[in-house]
């Protein structure tokens, strides 16, 4: 159907014998007899798109996903790496309170200065009297470097594979995640870092 690949001459004026053998990346826009009749080629195109439609509809109907795109932010993109770290979580003690002792090391090390901690005093817990009253991360500025995780002496802040639900109507407070959001981590659903951590060495 398509015309034979013609060799194009480059700079034919001054270098008549140089032949351009580069690969051509486009099709010859020539219509053959059959294509110029339009109708059957149009029907072929319609059968392709219609077939894709029926295939995807069948997938949706049988409870599978019939699309390549992802619900954002409800769904983690399939092509995110297993070691992608897009969201902070605060780990918890068995009673559900944050493991954080409000030492401010993460806020100090943070190059983007996005962590804000307000320490509080809890007389009922003599082992950990200092706790974060407020722990907020500004995701509009966070650069996801992970220094906060490395700086933490208590393994109180970690990063997980999810992304924060950021499509919000306003930047503030929408893109600030507070203690409540950071604490609702579900360890059972995070295969990257089991919680509580396995004891080191052979136990």
């Amino acid at each position, binding site marked *: 159907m398509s015309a034979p690949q013609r060799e194009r001459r480059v700079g034919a004026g001054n270098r008549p014998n140089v032949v351009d053998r580069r690969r051509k990346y486009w099709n010859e826009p020539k219509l053959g007899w059959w294509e110029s009749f339009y109708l059957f080629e*149009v029907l072929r195109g*319609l059968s392709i*798109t*219609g077939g*894709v439609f029926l295939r*995807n509809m069948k997938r949706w109907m049988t409870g599978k996903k*019939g*699309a390549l*795109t992802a*619900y954002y932010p409800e769904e983690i993109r399939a092509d995110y790496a297993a070691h992608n770290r897009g969201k902070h979580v605060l780990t918890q003690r068995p009673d559900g309170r944050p493991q954080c002792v409000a030492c401010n090391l993460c806020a100090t090390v943070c190059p983007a200065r996005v962590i804000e901690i307000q320490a509080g005093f809890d007389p009922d817990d003599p082992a950990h009297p200092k706790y974060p009253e407020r722990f907020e991360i500004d995701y509009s500025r966070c650069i996801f470097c992970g220094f906060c995780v490395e700086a933490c002496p208590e393994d109180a802040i970690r990063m997980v594979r999810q992304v924060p639900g950021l499509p919000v109507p306003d930047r503030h407070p929408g893109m600030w995640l507070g203690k409540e959001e950071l604490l609702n981590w579900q360890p059972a659903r995070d295969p990257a870092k089991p919680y509580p951590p396995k004891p080191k060495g052979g136990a």
Partner: protein
Amino acid sequence: MIQDLVVHGVFIGYAVMMLMTVGLILTWVERKQAAILSDRIGANRAYLRIPFTQVKLIWWGLFHGLADGMKMLLKEDWKPDSYDRVAYTLAPWFAFVPVMAVFAVIPFGGELQPGTFFGWFDGPAEWFGERSYAMQVAPLDAGLLVVFALGGIAVIGAMLAGWSSNNKFSLLGAVRAGSQMISYELVIGLTVVGLILIYGTVNLVSIVEQQSGTLFGFIPAWGIFLQPFAAILFLVAAQAENQRIPFDLPEAESELIAGYFTEYSAMKMGLFMFAEFIHIAIIAALFTTLFLGGYNLPYMNDSGFLFPGGFEVALPHVLVVLLQITVFWVKVFLMCGFLILVRWSLPRFRYDQLLRFAWRFLLPLALVNLVVTAIAVWALGGMG
């Protein structure tokens, strides 16, 4: 006479309500179908929240059409600095009303005998008596001619809009719309003349009734089997008449912003869009009526089914009426789906290609079809 008034009032209300609903739903169908056939999910964020609860009805984004309507109603009705006030205001209505009015002559069901609907109540049954009505808003003998007359008015809407908004893009779009719609109206007219020759009438009710028979005893006598070429030509020309891709030259976004309604905003622009979506439904309804046997299933007539071989199933009148209405709308929706599939599959023509296609390709084919049909009808001694 009061009975006639009541019945036709019901018909009019029903037709307007159904067209509005179908237009609204088609916006959703268009979005979702386009999304699904291109491996996307599609609009799914608008929801209705049941008051005083947190129950959100998303329903696969079905309420995006409502959200669009709200947005168009609440937008500023912006007007250009200099424009022709009267024409500018009238143009959306000239585009919208003829499209709606075409449905007046399309039969959406067979004979209706209102008396039989009130089996348990003697009053209304006696009041309606033996009266019967064709389910059609305006039972005009000139059915098809009315369709073309109203189609001609729609051109005026586009021309008025383009001329009155004092914008070069609008004017270019309007000129394109005018020449395109006139060219393709000619093709539509010629394709349908073949059908008129076969059926011997322009009355849509009797056209549909003639399609409830069979050919050679087993093929349903639908227009698409009698006039396959006319069916294809009609679909192509109707898509062009509707100014949708691949024939959306009047509003080619990459060239003309939005064509003849560039300067329109808010609900005036919404009327143009809505007219386009209702036009899809109208084209589908016309195609159903002319080529797909209208409101009848194969082998079905006003009293029940008559299968080939003489096997007959009689149905009560109420059931027949409901079945006919359902079948009509199912066919219309399938056709709408096909038209939307075409719109999302094909690339746009260039403008010279568009006109050449109409005048040098479709028009001769339509003429040939007409001549062949005329000879066949003459040779067979008038099939209708």
